[in-house]
Every structure is written in structure tokens, then in C-alpha cells.
């Protein structure tokens, strides 16, 4: 968008990806795709070709079947704020689901997130807020417990979400970094509990300009969030620069868990934050 920006952008994103252990394997494969992204086209066939390319880089030769029933993506058709696009993933046959991958095809770094559910999770619904840099397909790929992959897609109109400036200084954006809140919807006995995890973190995309140095703020983003309760895993999220600043994740909690919920978040620059939260219990 700016004359000199593109090479810088690609470089910073590449640097970011190699620093992200969970997604590094995908990232290194995704590099050529990112170069491709800069000139991607909007024609149906090319969108499909692009998805095939991304699919191969993440999932290799594994078969992915289309599905209308195992996963659904809800997103605004036209985003109001490209830097904060709310996404809801619904997985009605939740007991079959081991995890879900979120791919924003035309983002500079398409592989936005992978969520692996543990026994403490209710896998029926996940909500995330993402950045969308261009008119794009958003793919959700679910992995069933027996190792099959199913995908669905949704087209979203937005632009500039990854490079949109924060509207504040980097220092201000980093204030309280690592602070967390965990909120619970009202619990009904025996029913899954909806939880909202909020993490203070700028999630710098590497494509935003620093106000003082006029250089791009290096990518600094949450790359892993592990949520556990006792010795039970609730979920693990591997994230990337496509997650909006101050990440918010909605997820379901199995009602029979006991004890506080522990959240450990790390970022790609060795930041690590751990918080423990009292949670509603089955006896309530």
C-alpha cells in the first residue's frame, strides 16, 4: 500500500514466523505462499488454487473433505473494523472434535490459529477476533478424534487489518502486557460453561509503523495459550499475527471440572504470563 512497504512487510513477517515454534514448520513452508499473497488474484479458480497450496503446506497430502455439518464459520460479510473481525466457529458434533485450524487465505501469514481441545473443553463453539488484510476466504478445518479432516469456508470483505496502525504509541499499546481476565457466563448445573479469556497484548503484526522511529514495529504476538484445570487440559491455542490485539477467546468448559483454571500464555519474544482463576464448579 505504501511504496516501499512491501519488502519490509514480507521480511518482518518471515522473521516472525521463524520465531514461532508451534507454527514454524507450517511457516517455513508458507513463505513462498506469502510472496504469492502479495500478488494474489480474486478469481474463484485462483482462490481455490491458493487454498490448495496453503492446504498442502499445512496438512501435506492428507485428505480434507468438505462439510456443512461438522464446522461452521460465522463472520461479518463486510467487516466493520478490519483489525478486529469477530469469528465464531461452531462444531455441533462436538464430541467428535479434536481440534480446529483457522486459515485466512489472503492474509500475509494465512495460518491464523490452531486450537486443540482437551478433555476439559466443550468443543461446541470457539470465538476469536482476527485481523483481515484483504477480501479473503476464511477456512476452518476440523480434525476429528479419529484423525479425519473436514473443511468449510466463508468469504469476508475487509482490508488493511494487519497493517492498520494502533492509534497509540508502542509503549502505550504494551501497557499491562500479559494481564488477563477470565469471565464466565452464568452456569447451569450439568451444562457446559461459556468462558471468555481476555489477554492484554498488542499482538504487533510486524506490519504496523512505529510512530517515533518511522520503522515497522517488530512482530510480537501471542504464539501459544495453554488453558488447563488441575491435570486436565481444556485447550491449547497456537496463534499468529492474524489474531487481533488484546486477544479475546471464547470457549466452552466441561461442567464437571474442579479447581482453578490456569492460563499460560507465551509470545514469540519469550514473554510468558501465567494466571490462575477461580472457576464455577459442578457443585454450584
Amino acid at each position, binding site marked *: 500500500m505504501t511504496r516501499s512497504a512491501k519488502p519490509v512487510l514480507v521480511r518482518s513477517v518471515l522473521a516472525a514466523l521463524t520465531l514461532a515454534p508451534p507454527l514454524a514448520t507450517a511457516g517455513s513452508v508458507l513463505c513462498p505462499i506469502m510472496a504469492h499473497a502479495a500478488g494474489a488474484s480474486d478469481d474463484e479458480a485462483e482462490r481455490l488454487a491458493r487454498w490448495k497450496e496453503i492446504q498442502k503446506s499445512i496438512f501435506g497430502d492428507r485428505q480434507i473433505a468438505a462439510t456443512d455439518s461438522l464446522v461452521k464459520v460465522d463472520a461479518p460479510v463486510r467487516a466493520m473494523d478490519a483489525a478486529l473481525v469477530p469469528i465464531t466457529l461452531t462444531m455441533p458434533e462436538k464430541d467428535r472434535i479434536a481440534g480446529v485450524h483457522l486459515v485466512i487465505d489472503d492474509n500475509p501469514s494465512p495460518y491464523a490459529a490452531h486450537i486443540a481441545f482437551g478433555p476439559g473443553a466443550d468443543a461446541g463453539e470457539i470465538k476469536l477476533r482476527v485481523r483481515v488484510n*484483504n477480501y479473503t476466504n476464511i477456512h476452518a478445518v476440523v480434525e476429528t478424534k479419529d484423525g479425519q479432516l473436514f473443511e468449510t469456508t466463508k468469504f469476508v470483505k475487509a*482490508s488493511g487489518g494487519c497493517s492498520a496502525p494502533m492509534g497509540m504509541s508502542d509503549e502505550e499499546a504494551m501497557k499491562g502486557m500479559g494481564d488477563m481476565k477470565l469471565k464466565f457466563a452464568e452456569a447451569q448445573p450439568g451444562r457446559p460453561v461459556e468462558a471468555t479469556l481476555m489477554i492484554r497484548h498488542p499482538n504487533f503484526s510486524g506490519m504496523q509503523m512505529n*510512530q517515533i522511529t518511522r520503522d515497522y514495529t517488530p512482530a510480537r504476538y501471542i504464539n501459544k495459550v495453554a488453558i488447563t484445570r488441575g491435570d486436565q487440559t481444556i485447550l491449547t491455542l497456537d496463534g499468529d499475527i492474524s489474531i487481533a490485539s*488484546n486477544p479475546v477467546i471464547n470457549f466452552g468448559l466441561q461442567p464437571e471440572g474442579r479447581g482453578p483454571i490456569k492460563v499460560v500464555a507465551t509470545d514469540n519474544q519469550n514473554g510468558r504470563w501465567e494466571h490462575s482463576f477461580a472457576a464455577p464448579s459442578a457443585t454450584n
Partner: protein
Amino acid sequence: MRANAGRSRWSTTRRGALFGGLCLCCLPTLGRSAEGFDLQEVSPGIFIRRGPDAEATPENHDAIANIGFIVGDRSVLVTESGGSLADGAWLRAEIRKRTDKPISHVVLTHVHPDHCFGAAAFAEDKPVYVGHHALRAALDARGDYYRGRLAEILGADRAGSVVYPTLEVADGAEVDLGGRILRFTAHGAAHTTCDLSMRDSASGVLFPADLLFVTRIPSLDGSLVGWLKEADRLRAMGATQAVPGHGPRLVDLAPALDDLTRYLTTLRDETRKAIAADVPIEKAVQTVGQSERDRWVLFDTYNGRNVTQAFKELEWE
């Protein structure tokens, strides 16, 4: 971000590019029939052009804000530079039709492109560019981004360029045009993080720029809580009339501020309520503020975005 030249299917008019609280998609005809958009002398020596309540389009040159000039005994101050080089050049030509006095000052009221991208049209006058102390940093962060988007819509030659303030107002400042003094106030985060208002000593008229929207829905790009605070500050300045950043050229300040604060208060209270009730953001953008829907032009274009900004700000309270 990919280059977009030649990508006809993503023609700029269809992209609905929202940026910095200013959506550059197009609803070009709204508000046009209500009133002409020429310059009028709203008070002795104060000439204002009303900007239409529309988005930037190739046809309107992003000339959508209320811009104009104030003539003193010695020199001329430009109240707002215009939304593009083309808009700024138009204003400069209009000034020259009316006075030969030197253009000594150009005010850059905040970072949004519909207010500051006309600045380069005045370069040959070598004016003092007056801006908030935080404007430079905001322009550094967003200027290129805005320029790129504006160039997509208007073409690079008409878009304009980033011009920095040469008089950076920390708290307050005064400019004497001869026979009238303009007193500037640098505000805390409100509409944006670099809002500058001014008051003319000769007429008593207040120029709150985009701290005051009339008819056009306010766009939130700074701080909702802060904006309500700064609105109180404007109210306390004692002016009876004001030239808002958008809307009619000259309004009675008190009722206009009442309308603004009613919208902002609704936005704040209903967003807080939604957060407290665990209403998710994607629902809140559809429900918050709807009682205001018929009161503002471009409501559907901006309200959801305002709710998003408010939600982000208030959910950490």
C-alpha cells in the same frame, strides 16, 4: 497489503475501506440536497464551506469536512486545510478571490485525512501549520496509510501529502491575525488522540473541529470516555456559537453538544451494559446505540465501528 492498481473487481468504490474512524466508502448523495456547499461568511471575516455528509469519492475530492478561513487586519488563517490537495487548492483559490492578505496560518485540527490532506496546497504561502503536539506522531503512524487509501480513490496527483505541524500546541497557544486573536486548546484523547480546538476573540465563535459532529454521526477514534470529558470542557468555554467539523456551518453550541453527548453517552452506557451482560462484540455492534439510528446521517456506516472501538476501550475497565 497487495498493490491494487488495475484490480477492477476491487474498485475502490466497492471496497468500503474503513480507516482511522473514517470510512472511505461511498454514499455520495446523502445530505447533498439539504443545502449548498459553497463558502459563506458566517460571521464578519469568517468564511466556511459546509462539507456534505458523505464519504470520499472520486467526484467529491474528499471535500467532506467544514473548512474555511478567518481574515484578520494583517493576515488570513485557514481553519481546516481540506480533504485532499484538490480540496485545499480550491480553498486557496477561494481565499484569493476575496482577499490579498497573506495566508499566515493553516490549522491541522487532527490526523484524519478529510481535515489535513489539503495542507500541501498552501505550501507556497509558507504558513505556520498549527497542530496538536501529538499530531506529528499520529501522522507518522498513519499518514502513509491514509495517503495510500486516498490515492486509490482520488488518484495520487489529487490526494495530497503529509504535512507536519510547525507550531505544536502543548496545552494552549495564541495567534494574532491583527484585530482578532485565535486561542488554541490541545485536547486529551477524544475523537482522536490529537484534537485541537480554537476560539476567535473577535466573534467569540468556537472551532471545535471534529470534537463536534452535527447531523453526521460522530466517529470514534480516540477515547469514548475522554471525548465525553472534552465535550464538558468545550461546554465550559462559554461560547454560544460554533463551527463544527461536520454539519451546518454555524450552530448553537449548547444544543449541538447535547446531541453529541447524548449519542456518546448512549454508546458508552449500552456498551458497558453489553459487556457486563456478556453480550459478545459481534452482537453488540448490532444492538448498541440503535435508538440513535434516525438521528444521524451515515449511522449504519459508522455506528458498528464506533461500538467496536467502545467495546475495546471499555471491556478492560
